[in-house]
């Protein structure tokens, strides 16, 4: 990753993807029949919402890990210096 500073808010791609995921976790795009099809007792639309939510959590973890680097390098250098 190098010493490059990264802040999530400055990266428009992140917010486009988060916008799409936000649209996916809102149940506006399902036909009514998705309420009748059951998967192990869970309506199909709810299954898709749950899968989309998992996707959102995964993407957030990814962004947190790789696209938020403001202090980490300096803090780690400090820590090493302190030891």
């Amino acid at each position: 990753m190098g010493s490059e500073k990264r802040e999530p808010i400055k990266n428009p791609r992140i917010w486009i993807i988060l916008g799409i995921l936000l649209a996916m976790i809102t149940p506006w795009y399902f036909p009514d029949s998705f309420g009748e099809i059951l998967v192990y007792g869970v309506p199909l639309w709810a299954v898709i919402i749950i899968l989309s939510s998992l996707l959102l959590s995964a993407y957030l973890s990814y962004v947190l890990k790789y696209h938020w680097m403001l202090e980490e390098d300096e803090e780690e250098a400090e820590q090493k210096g302190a030891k």
Partner: protein
Amino acid sequence: MELAFSGWSGILILAMYGLIMLGVGVVTFLRNRHIHQSLDEYYLGGRGLGVMVLFFTFFATQYSGNTVVGYPPSAYRMGYEYLVSVPFFITIIMAYLLFAPRLYRLGKKYRLVTPAQWFEKRYKSKAVTILASLLMLYGLGNYLLEQLVAIGQGVSGLTGGTIPYQVGVVFFVIIMVIYGWLGGMRSVAYTDTMQGIALLFGVFMLLIGSIIYFGGLPTSADYMQAYSPEKLGVPDGPGVMNWFSLLVMIGIGAAVYPHAIQRIFAAKSERTLKRSFSRMAWMPFLTAGVVFIIGIIGINAYPGLTEGESEQLVGMMASAVASQNVIFYWAMVLLFGGVIAAIVSTADSVLLTFSSIISNDLYGSYINPDASEKKKLLVGKLVGLVAVGILILVAWFPPGTLYQIFVLKFELLVQIAPGLIIGLYWNRLHTKAVFAGMLVGTIIASSMTLFGLSYFGIANGLWGLLVNVGICVVGSLFMTVSVVEEKEAKQVIGM
């Protein structure tokens, strides 16, 4: 609440939880004797919270006993439409991405202790800081009141009324104040960890017990298909609107809770903070998801409950599960003890933040800036104690009229968001526009709540917030910020 397992075992478990909390306080005190001279040490744990402790203390600010006892009845009544309770906890983490990275950095740079102090640093305006502080104190006070009422009801329910409501409240408030005073943020965060683990364990046992005893989701779905197919159906137009408004409002609202913001400052390092958030992003499935399933199972287990009766759903299900065998019996006692402990853990975080705003911002910045940190701490602690005393009285003797003013929490707390977040990025944001936005947003949100108005299924707090943002942005575009002010703001933000 009528519980089959209430009585002496409930008293035993509550006494045990109380003793553990006190023990944590005493150990923290003995190991950190120096913390009572410094605001940083007392209110932020010396900015040294590690991943696990930070994670559980964030967990305690978002999930309370209410999540366990109050969410299943909503799922019971609304069916799958209440599945929104899972993603709305995830959007909180999304909202943190908007401001936490920069706020952590600035918090470290300027050694910020409270969110109000950021307002002071950024706007250098007494009016803005005091208004923001008062909004936070008022919102936090009502939040605390709600927790105190819940503690009282929980204790009297779990002990089958052997311990009356009032005694329950006083018992836990005394314990909470003692361990809070002994160890500050460290005590609060360590007890949050213990309380969070107890709650998670209990909820999972209730889920397992419910599935064994009442049948799982397919059984419940068969019942809904036959008797209430709308609970399985795709939400309709207003349902979708309400769903989306919850995602936005809970996302932003819970992220800017003052006690949640303060935890950003308490992180040991950026890496620690990121890891805690990353774990939080997965927790909704293990907490809100699990209690949601419990509520759905309840539809089949106890069909046809009225709204009032359905509020007792978790108690009924836990009682049935507890009567299965001795393991489930104690697991349910632990769960209900854990619910009360979780409410205490939310209350202690709120109280600590309440005191810190008094110590650091109102008393420490304006009333007596020359006071020693020790004195500022003492004033914060004492004012916090007086506030709790008043709130206990309000809880016992609820006023007949004007009760609504004790309901306003979220509507007020969310109004600090524009000044807090936009101010992190926009140098030209005008101080007067921030003040006007915050004030007008508060008036709109609270009067809508007081007069019971509602439009398009969008929450009152969100209406206030929209107007607030509008005033901040439009006002700043029309009013000129002097070159000096803009330069100063740029320097403060410094990125």
